[in-house]
């Protein structure tokens, strides 16, 4: 029983480390942007949130989280299971979608200078999906 407790504790620690360092600290650049936006508007409210990632930064972070998840799922100690492969496919598809979306966003940014509110909503959804799939990858990792 002691062995099982250690394994679960190790996994819990790994998930917490992932949430802390990969998810939270990867938003560091956006935090600096938050300070700049707050300075610009002399305050901050919810309507300024899209300004934090108006150049598609969230898509880059989403891509990095998906790539991290891919690495974790491919580096399995025991043989690949159905759930591992399924999770890997989800992460790869999300990486593809976020990369493609960033391509479209980059062309819009070059033309206008920032993305519109509709696309910024999509960026946020994609980022949350990448976090969810990345969380699944960390849980499924051996």
């Amino acid at each position, binding site marked *: 029983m002691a062995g099982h407790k250690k394994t*679960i504790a190790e996994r819990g620690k790994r998930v917490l480390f992932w949430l802390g360092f990969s998810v939270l600290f990867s938003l560091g650049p956006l935090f600096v942007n938050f300070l700049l936006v707050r300075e610009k508007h002399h305050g901050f409210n919810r309507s300024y949130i899209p300004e934090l990632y108006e150049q598609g930064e969230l898509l880059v972070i989403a891509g990095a989280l998906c790539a991290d998840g891919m690495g974790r799922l491919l580096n399995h100690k025991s043989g690949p299971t159905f759930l591992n492969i399924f999770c890997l496919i989800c992460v790869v598809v999300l990486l593809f979608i976020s990369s493609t979306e960033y391509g479209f966003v980059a062309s819009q940014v070059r033309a206008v200078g920032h993305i519109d509110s509709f696309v910024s909503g999509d960026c946020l959804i994609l980022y949350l999906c990448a976090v969810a799939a990345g969380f699944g990858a960390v849980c499924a990792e051996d």
Partner: protein
Amino acid sequence: MIGLALFCGSAGLIAGVVKFLLDFYRERHRRPAITVTIGDESIDLPNSFTDTQVAQVVALLKDIAAKRESPI
């Protein structure tokens, strides 16, 4: 595209959590390791051994112990 992303995100999350719970269940219901003691010495057999394999190992050790006239 967003629909596919939502599907992949939720499916990946569910797959990962299910895998975690399955591993947790297997770990919890794993048979404990078997320890065979001969005199003062003991040996741990892996818990992956089947009952037949354990019986074979114990029989072999009993044989060896009988030859050495050591209690098992």
